[in-house]
């Protein structure tokens, strides 16, 4: 806007009276090192927000005619909340301090150290749902087998396969636990075994 350009010039030391304009007269003689300093794109100077306008601070000028900064009207609602016209100080729970915790292993190589199902969370989504569900099922069977083993219903291999032995152990457990005996990993049975499913 035209006016603003005007201001920028006026604010920066020009004067309406020639006698105050002396600074300009010498502009030519003193080319200044930083004279062409200006912020790069998208690097405009940050504008500070008032640390004293914390939400809990009451703007006691709110109702005075042309009294208050409208940028300081940060929280109108708070005009009504407080009674004293002033607020209690802000307290802050600081982040936990941290410092280095251990010495690096003596054998340090820059190549891959640990193999893992996947190293970034992003790629896990790419595993086909079919495989995922099979994996989940087998994992669940493994936990069931383990639970049955701890309870002495199952002595076989913990292999994640729902075989005869596992199903038999499962039915035995269901019977003793007065559950529907179906040899399936239904919710009542899993609950009875202390197995949580997401």
């Amino acid at each position, binding site marked *: 806007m035209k006016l603003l350009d005007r201001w920028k010039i006026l604010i*920066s030391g020009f004067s309406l009276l020639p006698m105050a304009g002396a600074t300009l007269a010498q502009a030519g003689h003193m080319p200044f090192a930083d004279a062409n300093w200006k912020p790069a794109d998208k690097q405009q100077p940050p504008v500070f927000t008032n640390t004293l306008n914390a939400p809990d601070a009451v703007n006691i000028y709110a109702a005075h005619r042309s009294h208050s900064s409208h940028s300081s009207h940060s929280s109108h609602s708070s005009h009504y909340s407080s009674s004293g016209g002033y607020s209690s100080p802000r307290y802050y729970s600081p982040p936990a301090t941290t410092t280095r915790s251990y010495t690096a292993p003596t054998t340090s190589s820059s190549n891959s150290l640990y193999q893992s199902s996947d190293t970034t969370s992003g790629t896990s989504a790419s595993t086909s749902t079919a495989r995922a569900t099979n994996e989940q099922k087998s994992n669940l069977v493994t936990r069931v087998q383990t639970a049955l083993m701890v309870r002495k219903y199952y002595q076989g291999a913990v292999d994640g396969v729902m075989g005869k032995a596992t199903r038999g152990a499962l039915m035995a457990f269901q019977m003793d636990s007065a559950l529907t005996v179906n040899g399936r990993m239904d919710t009542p049975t899993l609950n009875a075994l202390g197995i949580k499913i997401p």
Partner: protein
Amino acid sequence: MTWPVTLQIDSAAYPLGVVQRAAYALADTVAIQIGIEASKICLTAFPTTAKLALPPQQAHSLILQHLNDFALRDHINHETTGLREVLARAALAGCGI
């Protein structure tokens, strides 16, 4: 020393702009008439109605102090020429209604 208080100063040490500003700043105390002759500037100061009781001696040192202060401001402005403008430009970058 009696009214009017007069000072003769070297326009090299006190450029006209400096003298004018000093006169402006003192306007509520003394009315200063500025005369220019060659390299000299001659100041003739009369007390304002409000300050008739002001001793000329005090007026003299007051004027001298203001002359020196404005000479110093002139020096500072000279040393910082253009910086205010640069600063305002940078600070107000992208501001518009």
